[in-house]
Structure formats: C-alpha cells, structure tokens
C-alpha cells in the first residue's frame, strides 16, 4: 500500500506550542513518525553562565511557565548539593506546598487539554474552571499567578502568611470533591473509555529503554518518583506513589487524577504544619564553593535534572538543565507506531509534552501524496464494531480503588 506523509505543525491550531511532526501513514495506520525540534530553543544554558546564582534561579523559572517551580526547585537543590546547605524546616514546608499546588494546576491543565485533543471540550472547560482558584491561591501566596519567584539558595524568598490557611482549605476541599467526581465521570464515560483505553501503549520494557520518567513511566508500571527516591524535603511528608500497569493513555489520565488527590493530601499536611513550625525561612548563603552539584525534583511531568559546576565565583561555570519531556517525548517512537492516525495526537499529548522545556520541534518532507487505496467506510465500520466490543467487555478499572476506600 502507498505511504502518505502527513505534516503536523509547526503552527497547528490544536497545538499550543510550535512543534513539527512528520507522520507517515499507510491507510489509517501510523507506520513511522519523526519529529523536528528547535523552534523553542532559547539557549538557557549559555545565558545562565552569564548570570549570578540568584539570577539563574529566576532565569530557569522562565524555562517553562507551567512547571515554573520545578526548575528553580531542582536548581537550588543543585546549588545546595555543592555545599550541603541546611534548609530551615519552615522553608521546606513552603517549598513542598508550592510544588504540590503547581502539580495540581499542571495536571488539571493537562486533563483539560487532553479533553480538547479528543474533541471533548466539556472536560476542558470544567477542569480549567477548577484550575482558576489554584492560580488565585498562588497570587495570594506569592504575588503572581504563574512565575512565583519563591526559591532562594538556602530556603525561600518570601514567608507564607498563616492568615491564608482558612482561605486555602475550602479550595482544597472543593478540588478533592471535584476530582472524585471527575474520577467517577472518567470511569463511567463510554466516550473517554473507548477513545483512550488501549490506545498508545508504552510497555514497561520500552519505558525503561527510553529512560522515561514521571507519570509516563509510572503509568507503564515503572516505580520511580524522585520525591520519594531523593528524599530531602519530602521526608517530612507521608504520601503514596501511584503506579499503574497498562501504559495506555487511559492509565495516564487516571494516574494524573489520582495524583491530584494525593497532592491535595500533601498540601493539607503542609497547611497543618505551618502554624506549628515557625521561625526562619531563609538560611542566607553568601558563597558557593568550587565543586559540582546535582539537583532534581519530581515535576508534574517527571524528573527535572539540574547540574551545576561552580568555580567559586558568583556565576555557574556550567549549568545543565534536563527537563522531563526531553526523556519522555522520544517514547512516541514506541507508542505511536501502529496505531490509527486519529489516536496519534492524543498519544503524542499523553506524555504531557512541554516543548518549551525541551526547547525543540518537528518538520515534514514532501512526497507524492497518493489517494488512499483502502475503503475508508469499511475501515470506519470495523473500528466502530471493535469499539463496541471493547466497551462491552470493560471490567473493573484502576480508578475503582478510590471508590473502594
């Protein structure tokens, strides 16, 4: 059968960021996929070498507007790793609180966009409606809706106002209630089920071989979570790492819903701790000695990695940034091949790709576009019949476990 090349991007109405995919299809099936990066490249690593350590924190915050706490979090870890700086306990709780609230808003954002990608705009509008109060909390706590600028080497730059606690609790209660509702809706919704179940499977072997991390790996049964493995601040908190076995898009969606509920629990623990833990919130660090440091943090999308090499001056000699999407995006080679074109987009979106973080994009090469030889009508009928079987055969889902408790 003849192959078609379908260019997607770089400025596609569905994609928020410029990215370019070159999808080769045979009939309706994706047989190969290529990606061209570089549209978003801004050269952070080079700019960071010209900035002081404190300025670097603000710079890395602007790598990505969605995970704008994760990058400073990992960067200050790397700087503290060089000298083993102690962090005051109050600062640790503030860091965790900001990090978890960010996870909530990022996962809600992804859920909405996932709904948008499969043409389910109701889900999009609902989740973004619940996301708005989270951003308002950020504005109250840090002064800005997106770039919070809370992090400093040795603590946080701004204290948490305890008077805000009674205002935040109702929002967390609302979020938990709505997430349980959403979990129920996901479980019962035949549209989501038939559109996402068994689509774009990333097997455990592939996840390990592509060095995937974060929700992408956890939904494929790989048990990694930097919050637990690296310890540091998160040793103060009790939480579960959610791991699901199947590796399809449905599991990734369910995993993110469950993680929001887990994050709400962590945020509550922080709020309970704030009145008890007082005192300093910043341990002033005036000098970073020569050496190397590695810092990492579990961003909403996976492991953020920062490596800083210092020569004892006030600027980093080398500042390496690895965003989670850098490891996760290449898994499209394993998950997208062999699935229908209509499912490819949601599969590409399922790793929650952040091209700003990755600083890259895609391109298309022209070839003779020939007419499809397949009878599209027959194929479409077959697909509908298959979906009906799948929905009818559905049994207990992983999401049931939150209703069993």
């Amino acid at each position: 059968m003849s192959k078609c090349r379908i260019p997607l991007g770089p400025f596609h109405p569905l994609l928020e960021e410029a990215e370019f995919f070159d999808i080769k299809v045979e009939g309706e099936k994706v047989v190969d996929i290529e990606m061209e990066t570089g549209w978003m490249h801004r050269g952070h690593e080079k700019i960071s070498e010209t900035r002081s350590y404190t300025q670097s924190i603000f710079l890395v915050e602007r790598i990505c507007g969605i995970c704008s706490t994760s990058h400073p979090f990992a960067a200050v870890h790397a700087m503290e790793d060089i000298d083993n700086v102690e962090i005051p306990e109050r600062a640790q709780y503030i860091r965790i609180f900001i990090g978890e609230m960010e996870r909530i808003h990022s996962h809600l954002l992804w859920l909405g966009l996932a709904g948008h990608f499969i043409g389910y705009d109701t889900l999009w509008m609902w989740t973004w409606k619940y996301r708005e109060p989270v951003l308002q909390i950020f504005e109250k706590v840090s002064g800005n809706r997106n770039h919070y600028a809370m992090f400093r080497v040795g603590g946080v730059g701004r204290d948490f106002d305890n008077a805000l606690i009674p205002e935040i609790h109702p929002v967390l209660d609302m979020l938990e209630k709505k997430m349980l509702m959403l979990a129920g809706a996901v479980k019962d919704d035949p549209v989501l089920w038939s559109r996402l179940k068994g689509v774009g499977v990333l097997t455990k072997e592939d996840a390990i071989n592509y060095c995937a991390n974060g929700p992408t790996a956890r939904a494929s049964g790989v048990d990694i979570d930097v919050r637990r493995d690296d310890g540091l601040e998160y040793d103060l908190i009790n939480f579960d790492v959610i791991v699901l076995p199947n590796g399809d898009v449905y599991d990734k969606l369910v995993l993110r819903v469950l993680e929001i509920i887990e994050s709400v629990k962590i945020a509550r623990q922080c709020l309970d701790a704030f009145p008890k833990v007082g005192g300093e919130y910043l341990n002033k660090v005036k000098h970073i000695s020569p050496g190397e440091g590695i810092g990492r943090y579990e961003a909403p999308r996976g492991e953020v990695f920062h490596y800083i090499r210092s020569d004892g001056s006030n600027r980093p000699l080398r500042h390496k940034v690895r965003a989670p999407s850098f490891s996760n995006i290449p898994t499209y080679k394993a998950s997208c091949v062999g699935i229908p074109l209509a499912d490819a987009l949601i599969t590409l979106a399922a790793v929650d790709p952040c091209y700003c973080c990755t600083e890259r994009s895609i391109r298309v090469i022209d070839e003779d576009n020939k007419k499809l030889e397949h009878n599209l009508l027959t194929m479409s009928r077959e697909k509908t019949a298959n979906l009906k079987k799948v929905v009818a055969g559905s049994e207990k889902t992983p999401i049931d476990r939150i209703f069993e408790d």
Partner: protein
Amino acid sequence: MSDKSTEFFEKFQDKIAKIIKKPKRIYFNIKNEDLREISDYLFNTMGCRLSICTATEVYDGLEVLYHFSDDTTGIYYNPRVKTGLENPEINSITPLIEGANWIEREMYDLFGIKFKGHPDLKKLLTINNPHFSEDDHPMRFNRNRTKEK
C-alpha cells in the same frame, strides 16, 4: 554505600580513576574505550536509568559527564569521559540505551562532539535554523559564526 555500588567499584577497579564520593553522588573518570562496557553494566546489570549527559568545555578539552541514576537507592553514578578540543570524538552508547539518542544529538549540536556509532547523528536544536551553519556549535567558546553578519 550499598552492596551493588561496592561490587561495581571492585569490578572496574583498574578502569576507574579519581573517584569523588559525596552522599548519594559519585563522580569518577573513565576512558573512552571503557565507556560502553561500564554503561552496559550500569544500565543492564545494575538497573540504573540514564538521566542525562552533560558536556562541558574546560581549559584543556571537552568532557562529557554521564548521569546514571539508581532509583532504588537514589545514588547518582557519574562517569566522566574526556576528549580533546580538536575533532572531539566519543563512543556512542545509543546502540545500548535508546534513551541516549537525543542527548547525544544535542551534545553534537551544541558542542560539536562526534559520537562514533550513533545511528542518526544530526543536529537537534539548531537543525534547519538559518542562523546556524552546520559547523556552528553555539555552546563552544570559540564559536564558528559563519552565518552572522
């Protein structure tokens, strides 16, 4: 220090130099010829994940630091490979670890390090960018700014 780690350092005793040990972070120098063997052991036998690699330009050459993360203990193993400033070349580990594909392309792009054995070594970030020529590697100190005015 876990058993796995002790076993690793005993096995490769003569191939490893200049070990710097910190809590949860271990840096050591290896030679280019031993890179594949050591990466294979770390990735397949010890079950480490290749987090990323960092290339750095230092005064006497380029060095590439591989970051292998042992997710069961939280320890980072960081083998360091050195190469010269002229025609830098290092063995590719992409045939062993698929996850190293993009980062090797990125290091080729930004630093001009050639990876021997890489299946598809082309630029990653400045590819098809009209501002950067094929031999312009923007992270190098002596950049070849052929296309700039």
